[in-house]
């Protein structure tokens, strides 16, 4: 079975500051890794995903994440945040080879960007 831990439930940050949202996972099998963003009263939108290859993955809106297999982590970063980045961010995994995209989500991290 897989599990995902997002280490911070809330991250306050000032506009134009860098931010890192932390995600660790546990799995007995290899997994794909995803970050989704949820704006208020909206559905989830994919920010980026790691399937294979380079461990540094770039996504939309200037976000990137680095897969670290030895630490089983997939932290999300942005060098300079905007007010519009205020949202809930979810890390998720799905089992490789399962054939279906059963996503296991972390509890989410609320990013609050202040002026």
């Amino acid at each position: 079975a897989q599990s995902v831990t997002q280490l911070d439930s809330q991250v306050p940050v000032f506009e134009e500051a860098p931010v890192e949202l932390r995600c660790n996972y546990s799995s007995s099998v290899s997994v794909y890794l995803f970050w989704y963003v949820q704006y208020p009263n909206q559905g989830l939108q994919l920010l980026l995903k790691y399937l294979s290859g380079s461990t540094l993955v770039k996504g939309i809106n200037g976000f990137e994440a680095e897969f670290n297999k030895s630490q089983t982590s997939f932290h999300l970063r942005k060098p300079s945040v905007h007010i519009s980045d205020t949202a809930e961010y979810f890390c998720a995994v799905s089992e490789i080879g399962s054939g279906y995209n059963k996503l296991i989500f972390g509890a989410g991290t609320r990013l609050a960007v202040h002026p």
Partner: protein
Amino acid sequence: DTAVSQTPKYLVTQMGNDKSIKCEQNLGHDTMYWYKQDSKKFLKIMFSYNNKELIINETVPNRFSPKSPDKAHLNLHINSLELGDSAVYFCASSQGQGRTEAFFGQGTRLTVV
């Protein structure tokens, strides 16, 4: 043009009632899902259908019954609603294999009073 659409967006109903939430996707995907997001924002998969066949059925009360008339539609029917069913329900779709992303609908906020 909305890729995954759910109706209704809001649903307020009394305990004991039966209600349905509808979902349609126009992406041509062959797999659809229902996820539940509780009041603490925690997301958990409930069901998944692949080409109208049930492939994932998590530990969900049998008051919840998904129905897929075709691969573009996955509806969720809930019988005898309880207070604890209050949540946001998200429909999603993907093109089968786990490598591809899941596209989510806007959610249906169900409030049971």
